[in-house]
């Protein structure tokens, strides 16, 4: 089968496109470091989808995502002077992780108080997941991921949904490389088990 003669051109342009974007972002970061808020605004436009997705994947309420994202970019701006481009995304993920944890902690405190005064949230309340993830299977998997302990959940998210390599995960999480690999493997096994049980509860068989 003859290869499409344009294919290499498409591939090269796609790679070139990525390379150009990386160079552009590097310049934006340098300008933002010098106080150029317009440059920083462009960076926010580019990176905010990543931050939003990561925050949501970690189990934050959809309604909290704008607040979390705002806090992330405020903190990133504060520490921007210390970043090189190569480290920028690592910092972005680190900060998102920290802000997300802080928000979750506050939310847990609130939920504990709500339960205490007898307004226990019903297990059957329809969460907004239904409006955000349309497919039942996706919702189920998303909820199974939420049930994982944080130390397994985060490597799973970074690996599958953000294509992070082990080395970058180790930097983001401030753990050793071997610990990343162990947690990823264990997390995958736990997730499979969780998913199988969820499907059984739903009355489905999945081979």
């Amino acid at each position, binding site marked *: 089968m003859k290869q499409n003669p344009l294919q290499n051109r498409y591939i090269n342009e796609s790679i070139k496109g990525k390379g150009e974007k990386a160079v552009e972002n590097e310049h934006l970061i340098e300008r933002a470091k010098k106080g150029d808020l317009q440059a920083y605004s462009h960076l926010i436009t580019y990176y905010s989808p990543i931050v939003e997705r990561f925050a949501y994947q970690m189990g934050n309420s959809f309604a909290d995502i704008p607040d979390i994202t705002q806090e992330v970019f405020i903190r990133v701006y504060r520490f921007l002077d210390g970043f090189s481009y190569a480290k920028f995304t690592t910092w972005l993920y680190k900060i998102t992780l920290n802000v997300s944890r802080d928000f979750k902690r506050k939310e847990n405190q609130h939920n504990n108080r709500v339960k205490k005064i007898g307004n226990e949230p019903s297990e059957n309340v329809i969460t907004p997941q239904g409006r955000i993830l349309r497919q039942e299977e996706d919702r189920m998997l998303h909820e199974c991921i939420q049930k994982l302990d944080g130390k397994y959940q985060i490597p799973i998210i970074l690996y599958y949904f953000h294509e992070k390599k082990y080395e970058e995960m180790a930097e983001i999480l*401030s753990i050793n490389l071997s610990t990343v690999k162990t947690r990823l493997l264990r997390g995958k096994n736990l997730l499979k088990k969780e998913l199988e049980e969820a499907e059984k509860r739903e009355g489905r068989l999945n081979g």
Partner: protein
Amino acid sequence: MDDKMLEKRMELLNQSYKKIPDQTNPSDIIQAIKQEGKSQKKRPLIHWPYVASFIGVLLIGAVLILQLTMDEPGRQNGNQADFAGESDQRLQREIEDAKAQYELRKTQAMERLGFTEVIFNSTVIAREAGRHLTYIESIPKRDFSNERKVEWVKRASEELDQILATPDVMMKNLKAPLSKEEAEVWMDDFIKKEQDVLPRYEDVLNDYKEYWKPHVENGKFNMKEFNHMKNDYPPKLWLLRDGIFNNAVKLTYNSETDRLETTLDVEYFRMITNREALPEGYELYLITRFDPVIQAGELTGTWKEAADRLMEYEKMLKELPDNSRFRVEVKHEYNLLYQYFTDGNVYQPIFDERDELKSHVEETYRYIMKEYPDYTTSLHLKEVYEELRRMNFVKPDRWVQKTPVILSSEAEEIYKD
């Protein structure tokens, strides 16, 4: 479920995630950034005094003295089988290696902190490392086998690494979760080192006033602007700035003293370190240590912030073990702050001239009862509140309030049993 099926499901979920609409409006964030510097807590007038620490060296000395006095008889004159010349050379090599390591680590520490040699030599870190090196050099003079001496030199060299580890190295190496015992030692070391370097940065920075003063706007120091002018600064100032950033040092301007002041940058610390590494009580302790709510006898922030801090102290007292070296200090801070809520202080009484509870203090009581219903402190303050409410919030003639005792969780377990 096999791996392939899981991969497929994850891929589908990933596609669904990418379809979720974005919610961020960059201009809102830019606006928030512009507003960021405008509200800031009042900076404390009193610096944290730094105290020279000899404990590490004393401990090492004590261990060695114990070894000397408890050594087995008959070995004091060395192993007869040693080939004296060869083992002497080995000992010398180890000592030379230790000295070379000392020089290397010292240079690295200076670079990491951004200090000149003169400034670095004035730190406790440098003095302690110097004493340790003197001890290493004195080992050959001791009347023990060379084998034993080599062991001591190696151990002392490892301790040199720890002594010369700067705060940034300590933070980066904080990866695996620490036990409470390990956290005690780590925290003590980290705080001492930060307290050692913070005043040095202040003193040196205030020598470079002509460079940073132009970046004080409306009584606030604009760190970003200061960083922009990098190329105009002397190299030593720029190295210093790198040291400040990497070692979690935060700069603020004190308009009353016209000086830049330093404290721990807690946000940076939390960003750099593995959040799972320190047990919760210890992380809280670090945060509160460098961000006091009471200075010169008055609250540095709002009553609500003081209320949050009071609860944090309770949490710490529950988390810290009974033998924690930080417990006494936290207990003292807790007691003092609790009394502020029941009795006020000289500058901020809680009752007005008609002996009525001030409205903002009453609000804070209600805030505590609502936000922290499970806390022991909250239950006690609720009783205080009820007592005042029965008197229409007028201070009774006899007004004596006791501070609750907060037990550690390990003590609570014992009492439960």
